[in-house]
């Protein structure tokens, strides 16, 4: 099933990612994303206030800050205390980013269709489709000219979950190609964050993306292409639901202007004062004049497969049998003095007609051959030889061998990481008896590198934005050993992250004032600070870790067990001077038929924790539903626990961020409701509507300061298209504004404003009322009513 089936079309190339980095800061809590405002309590530390911000905020954002200039709490946050981070420009590496992403086809660097296979090991490179470009495209913006796809981190402090919004995937061109119109946006999966820690940077991270297209969403121009014709025929013959597109991204690099684009080169990793001064000057020029705006996207390699999509397959994540890491393995490469310990990523497996097909796109770690090359080239680490077999009664029964030649980069490159191994009937039978196991062969003995994940659960609506008071139902597809799991009970609980910087660990949300040690502080060297992954009494202890650097700067991640340093309590950190960097672990969701209970933490105080969870059971199709009402703004993450024994599954109080890679999580964003804002707007207009300058007043007193100002500061790219501090320019684009801020577009459109979709329903309501009842009617001298919000 899936892209592991045949026929397949292989694609590869490069991708660009162009985020605005001032509002997605890894290190500094500049943006209060829960409330969608500048984090004024934080900026006040630097004497930047709402009143003086027009002249002080942007200069501060684009200028270097030193560690000594920061409030202490910034570096107290575990993983956020690396001294090498500073001096640091709060705008980070891409101030003018527009959230665009897509494939790169620039000069001789192309992203193309490279081949395909109609059946196993019959590789085709001579085809009318091969050599043509492919691209992800966005929705139309008043023109037939293509627009970019967009990507948005669901939470600024969870870089494990990124949504990719697009309108269509375009393969080839009008003479030979295929247009695939979006049905499902994408959410990255299997981010191998631990490889960044093991090998020293995000360049080593791989992630997997997937989306599917129903048949009706396909526009074929098969031309002379055998690959396209076969894919179309087989889709129909095999009664596939449509097509699946899966791709991996890897080998991320930064500061490649002039290599993949025409923008001026900048080195945003250079901490030398002269380099920082140059970057500040370039940012200032871009703020002063739109013709000096420049992007500095991140780039990575991509390898993709287009294949068939069948009933019961997750649309947005690989389904079927899945192998996940078990024990650590040792890997090496020619320049590595000592082998390094690491984990394998995630492997999907399928047996079809005596062929074992494995998706190794995310399985084996890789390294850049030349770190200093303009365009990085990867090779896989020598990770040894493997036997894939099954575990029978605790004994490993090997079936097939996998060696370096099969997973090395050239093989990966040719088939986008897919590997097909012919099987005898006996081998097929053995593997089908499962569960699968992958063992690394070593002179000192075999290492159980990966084992089959019995259960998988994926949420179709993962990454959804909901409003406070909204009622929402999520569909969860549950599989056991790759097959839909009927009548299976799940426990669902809500987790949160306690900090609004870096990427932090997950804690169960709770409704009482429970206190516990949040982290251990090392005032003399905060690089040693580490989280306390507190657990309930009687639960299994969780191995802890120590990270060096965060976000793009993550360079090391190692397990530690001994807790040292000064314990810092959650309540103390949440309510003290450090409050601007915290996010309360209170629930954002209220489950329908939720079960409310109290757990006791394994600490000296035997802290009681009041929390809730809900249970749900899958139907015959393996799909369960969970419903809730959003009650508070924030970034809840749902975690699913399968009840596969007579006992209820444990709901842990906390888990480490690197577990997010393979666990069953659904990130959500709850946007705030502020009815007072809506009432204030109506009241204010009714106070001034007869004034001769009422249109200016309502802008100056309300629309700009209370609705648009935050976005003006955080999305300076808007200066080029719609300067959000200009009444004339915003009112002059009111027709477009009305369309792009609509709730309908927030869910899927690549043009939704703001591009990160963080417009609260109250701000949207005010903007819509202002736009439709005032601007579009040229500000009639008539009062507004609260009921006008209902008639937009």
């Amino acid at each position, binding site marked *: 099933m899936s892209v592991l089936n045949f026929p397949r079309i292989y694609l590869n190339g490069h991708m660009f990612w162009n985020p605005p980095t001032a509002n997605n800061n890894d290190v500094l809590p500049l943006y209060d994303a829960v409330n969608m405002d500048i984090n004024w309590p934080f900026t006040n530390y630097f004497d930047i206030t709402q009143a003086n911000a027009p002249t002080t905020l942007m200069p501060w954002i684009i200028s270097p800050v030193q560690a000594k200039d920061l409030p202490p709490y910034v570096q107290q946050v575990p993983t956020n205390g690396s001294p090498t981070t500073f001096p640091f420009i709060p705008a980070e590496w891409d101030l003018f980013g527009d959230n665009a992403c897509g494939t790169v086809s620039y000069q001789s660097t192309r992203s193309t269709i490279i081949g395909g296979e109609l059946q196993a090991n019959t590789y085709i490179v001579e085809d009318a489709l091969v050599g043509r470009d492919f691209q992800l495209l966005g929705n139309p913006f008043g023109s037939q000219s293509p627009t970019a796809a967009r990507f948005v981190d669901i939470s600024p402090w969870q870089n494990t979950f990124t949504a990719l919004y697009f309108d269509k995937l375009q393969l080839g061109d009008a003479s030979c190609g295929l247009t695939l119109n979006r049905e499902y946006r994408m959410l990255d999966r299997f981010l191998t964050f631990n490889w960044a820690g093991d090998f020293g940077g995000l360049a080593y991270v791989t992630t997997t993306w997937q989306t599917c297209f129903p048949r009706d969403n396909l526009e074929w121009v098969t031309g002379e292409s055998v690959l396209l014709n076969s894919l179309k025929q087989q889709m129909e013959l095999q009664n596939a639901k449509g097509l699946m597109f899966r791709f991996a991204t890897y080998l991320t690099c930064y500061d490649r202007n002039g290599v993949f684009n025409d923008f001026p080169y900048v080195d945003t990793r250079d901490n030398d004062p002269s380099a920082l001064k140059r970057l500040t000057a370039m940012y200032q020029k871009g703020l002063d004049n739109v013709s000096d705006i420049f992007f500095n996207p991140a780039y990575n390699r991509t390898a993709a497969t287009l294949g068939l999509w069948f009933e019961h397959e997750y649309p947005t994540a690989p389904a079927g049998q899945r192998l996940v890491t078990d024990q650590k393995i040792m890997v090496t490469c020619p320049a590595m003095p000592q082998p390094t310990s690491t984990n394998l990523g995630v492997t999907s497996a399928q047996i079809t007609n005596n062929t074992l097909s494995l998706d190794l796109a995310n399985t084996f770690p890789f390294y850049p051959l030349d770190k200093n090359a303009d365009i990085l080239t990867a090779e896989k680490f020598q990770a040894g030889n493997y036997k894939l077999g099954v575990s029978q009664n605790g004994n490993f029964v090997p079936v097939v061998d996998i060696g370096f030649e099969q997973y090395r980069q050239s093989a990966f490159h040719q088939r986008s990481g897919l590997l097909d191994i012919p099987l005898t009937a006996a081998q097929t039978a053995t593997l089908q008896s499962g569960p699968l196991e992958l063992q690394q062969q070593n002179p000192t003995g075999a290492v159980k590198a990966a084992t089959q994940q019995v259960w998988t659960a994926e949420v179709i609506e993962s990454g959804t934005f909901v409003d406070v008071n909204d009622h929402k139902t999520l569909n969860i597809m549950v599989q056991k050993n790759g097959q839909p799991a009927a009548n299976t009970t799940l426990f669902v609980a809500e987790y949160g992250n306690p900090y609004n910087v870096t990427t932090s660990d997950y804690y169960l949300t709770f409704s009482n004032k429970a206190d516990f040690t949040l982290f251990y502080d090392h005032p003399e060297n905060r690089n040693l600070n580490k989280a306390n992954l507190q657990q309930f009494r009687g639960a299994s202890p969780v191995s802890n870790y120590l990270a060096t650097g965060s976000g793009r700067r993550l360079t090391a991640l190692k397990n530690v067990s001994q807790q040292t340093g000064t314990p810092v309590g959650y309540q103390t950190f949440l309510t003290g001077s450090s409050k601007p960097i915290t996010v309360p672990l209170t629930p954002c969701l209220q489950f329908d038929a939720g079960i409310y209970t109290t757990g006791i933490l394994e600490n000296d105080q035997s802290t009681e924790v009041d929390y809730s969870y809900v249970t749900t059971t899958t139907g015959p199709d393996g799909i369960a539903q969970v419903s809730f009402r959003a009650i508070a703004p924030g970034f809840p993450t749902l975690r699913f626990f399968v009840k596969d024994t007579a006992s209820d599954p444990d709901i842990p109080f906390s888990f480490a961020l690197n577990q997010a890679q393979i666990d069953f999580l659904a990130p959500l964003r709850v946007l705030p409701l502020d009815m007072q804002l809506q009432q204030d707007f109506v009241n204010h207009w009714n106070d001034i509507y007869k004034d001769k300058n009422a249109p200016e007043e309502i802008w100056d007193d309300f629309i700009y300061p209370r609705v648009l100002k935050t976005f003006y500061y955080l999305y300076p790219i808007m200066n080029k298209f719609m300067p959000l501090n200009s009444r004339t320019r915003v009112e002059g684009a009111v027709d477009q504004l009305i369309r792009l801020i609509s709730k309908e577009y927030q869910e899927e459109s690549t043009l939704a404003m703001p591009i990160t979709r963080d417009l609260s329903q109250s701000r949207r309501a005010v903007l819509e009322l202002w736009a439709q009842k005032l601007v579009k009617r040229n500000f*009639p001298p008539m009062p507004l009513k609260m009921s006008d919000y209902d008639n937009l």
Partner: protein
Amino acid sequence: MRRAISLTVLSALAGLAQAQDTNSFDCNQFLKYGTDITKTRAAFQQSPETMAWNWFVCLNQPSAAQTSNRVWETMKPSDQVYLPDGAAPGPYASNAPLPADVTKQATALGMDLNRTFHNINAVQQVDGLALHMGGSVPASEKGKPVRFQLLMGQDTYDYIVARNVYNMNGQNALAGNLDFPATAWELKAAWLWIGSDTTYRQTLANDGYYIGQAYYQQDDGTYQVGYAALSGLHVVNKLDANWVWTTFENVNNSKYTVTNAPTPTPMTNTTGPTPAAKPVNASFQAGNPSLSKYELIGVEFQPVTQVLANSQLESAFQNTSSCLACHGTAAYSNDKGYFNFAIKQGGGIVYPTTPLPPSDFDGYKKLDFVWSLKRAQWQR
């Protein structure tokens, strides 16, 4: 396909035939279509492009009443029609006095106070975006917007005044649709700001730009006063019930204006000149040295699916720009306000290239293609 090509060629040949005689058109009373509108309609039907050029030539002759200005420069700018607080505008021929600071700066710069000073405050096109200057412009002008103004002829103005729709109170009180007279004219001009840079001014003059005098008010209330170069001009009138839409621009615009792409590229026109316009352009350019660097992009007058754009006025949405279809949405509803022609489609925005069905305007009062009425203000 064969038939379409043949028609195109024939159309172009017809235009060429008409264009041979560029000097025979009588500009006298051309804004009223001379003495016989029927003859003008017939001539227009024979070669719309030739008629468009004839009008363009007439509009660019020195004004009989104000010899230092061209005819079109004496038309009524919209900022003197739709006044603050919805006030009634004065007589058509009476120009509002220039702001004192503008006069002061103009005098200091040695500018001609007897010539028109165009108020070019507007910087947005109908898609809400600005067109930025770049390429060969001086460093001081890079990234700054091209500027726009709307002007109208006397019969347009008189109708607006007669129907009291120069303010919102009048538009709100309308009981039905508007219906402008056949002799209604409107113009929309695009300008490259020059300021007082004499070298740049000469460069643009050498590239065939008409240089006008202009000013605009900045966000801080102060005025910029200087010269500006005419980069584009829409010329429309109601010779036909769907109006006649013609547009001209300077052939060198790609040297001075850029796209809004991440790395900007020269702004070009992707919709024309149409095949029918090309031979007419060649003929009229040869016969009119002062207009030799302007070209007609095309003419619209039939309510069909079509695109036509001026690179200076519909820059980023040229391939979805139809003057007739877009202006055909000019409508106002007391409850909903002005019609939103940014159509929700495909998860984004498109603009109409085919006239929308009448049912889309249920509850609206049609404004007879005149979108400038949007600038009206309420009396307070």
